[in-house]
C-alpha cells in the first residue's frame, strides 16, 4: 500500500548498463545476453509485488545473480565446457580489457563473483551487498575479501 515504486523504465535506465557489465563479467559474453533479458523480465514480473522501494538495486543484482547461477549450471550440463575457450587464446572479440581476469572471476564461487564485482566496480556498501548475497554484513565482507585474495594470488602466479 504505502510503497511508492518508481516507473520501471527509471530502474531500467539507471541500471541496465551496469547489470549488463555484471553479467558479462560473471557469466561471459556468450551467456550475458540471455541472462540480461531473463533478469529484467523476472524483475518486471515481480516488481508490483514488492513490499519496499528501498534497496531496489540490491534486489536487481540478486535476481541477476540467480540468472548467472542458472547459466553456470546450464553450461556445466553442456557436453563441451565453454570455460575452456578463453584458455585457447581467443577471447570473445567484444570483450576487451582483461579477458583473462574475467575468466578468473567466473571461476570463483557464485557469492564471491558478485561480491568482487559489486564492491570493486559499483562501490556497493557492505549492507547492500549483504542483501544481494542474502547473507550477513560480515559474510558479505568476507566474500569480497576471499574473492579478491584468490584473484590476487592467481594473478601473481
Amino acid at each position, binding site marked *: 500500500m504505502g510503497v511508492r515504486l518508481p516507473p*520501471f523504465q527509471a530502474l531500467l535506465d539507471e541500471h541496465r548498463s551496469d547489470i549488463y557489465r555484471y553479467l558479462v563479467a560473471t557469466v561471459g559474453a556468450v551467456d550475458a545476453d540471455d541472462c540480461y533479458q531473463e533478469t529484467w*523480465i523476472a524483475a518486471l514480473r515481480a516488481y*508490483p509485488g514488492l513490499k519496499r522501494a528501498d534497496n531496489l538495486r540490491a534486489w536487481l543484482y540478486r535476481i541477476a545473480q540467480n540468472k548467472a547461477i542458472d547459466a553456470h549450471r546450464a553450461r556445466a550440463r553442456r557436453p563441451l565446457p565453454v570455460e575452456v575457450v578463453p584458455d585457447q587464446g581467443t577471447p570473445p572479440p567484444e570483450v576487451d580489457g582483461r579477458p583473462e581476469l574475467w575468466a578468473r572471476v567466473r571461476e570463483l564461487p557464485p557469492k564471491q563473483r558478485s561480491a568482487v564485482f559489486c564492491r570493486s566496480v559499483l562501490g556497493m556498501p557492505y549492507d547492500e551487498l549483504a542483501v544481494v548475497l542474502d547473507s550477513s554484513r560480515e559474510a558479505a565482507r568476507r566474500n569480497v575479501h576471499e574473492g579478491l*585474495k584468490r584473484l590476487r594470488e592467481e594473478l601473481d602466479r
Partner: protein
Amino acid sequence: MKDMERIIRDAAGGLPGVAPELAIAERAEDEGLLDVAYASVDSPLGSLTVAVTPRGLVRVSYDEFRERDRTLEELAERVSPRVLELPAKLDPIRRELDEYFDGRRTAFDVPVDWALTRGFAREVLRATAGIGFGDTGTYASVAAEAGSPRAVRAAGNALGSNPMPVVVPCHRVLRTGGALGGYTGGVERKEFLLRLEGALL
C-alpha cells in the same frame, strides 16, 4: 586488497555496453507484463507524453506544463509501476493526433482507459467527450450532463485535472457567456485548439 579492487574496476571499463537489440519493453509486451507503455509525441503545442494501457489511452500530458518524470511517477503510482517506453505501441494514437493537428481528423477512434479518473470527475469528463469537433459546452452544461447541475465549480476542477487533454476535449468547455476559462496546458493552448476546430475565430 585495494589494488585488486582498482584492477577490477579499471578492467570493467573494457566490458561491452548493452546491445540495442536487447530491448526489454518488446519482450515484456510479448509476455503480457507491460501495463503502461509510453512515448513522446511531437505536436504544434509542444512535446506530449502519451501513455496507453492494454485497455486504451490513459494519459496525454504537455511536457512543458508538467515534467515528464512526474507524469510517469503518477502513472506508476496510480495505474501500475510496470511502466516502459515503447514508441511502437503508441503508433495508432500518434497517427490520430497527427491527423487531428493537420485538420484531417475531427474525432478520435482509439479506445480510452479512464483509470486515472474517478467519481464525479469521470462523469464530467465522459460528458465532455461527447462534445463534438467545432462545438462548445459550458462548465454548467457538463456539470448537468454529469448529473449535478449545481456542481459547476467541481466540474471546472474535473476538467482542470483531465488526464487526456486534446483527446478528451476539455478545451471545448467554456464559461457561461463565452469567456474561455482556464486550461490544463495554459489558455493559449485552449485558444489554439478552438481556432483549429473553427470554434473560435
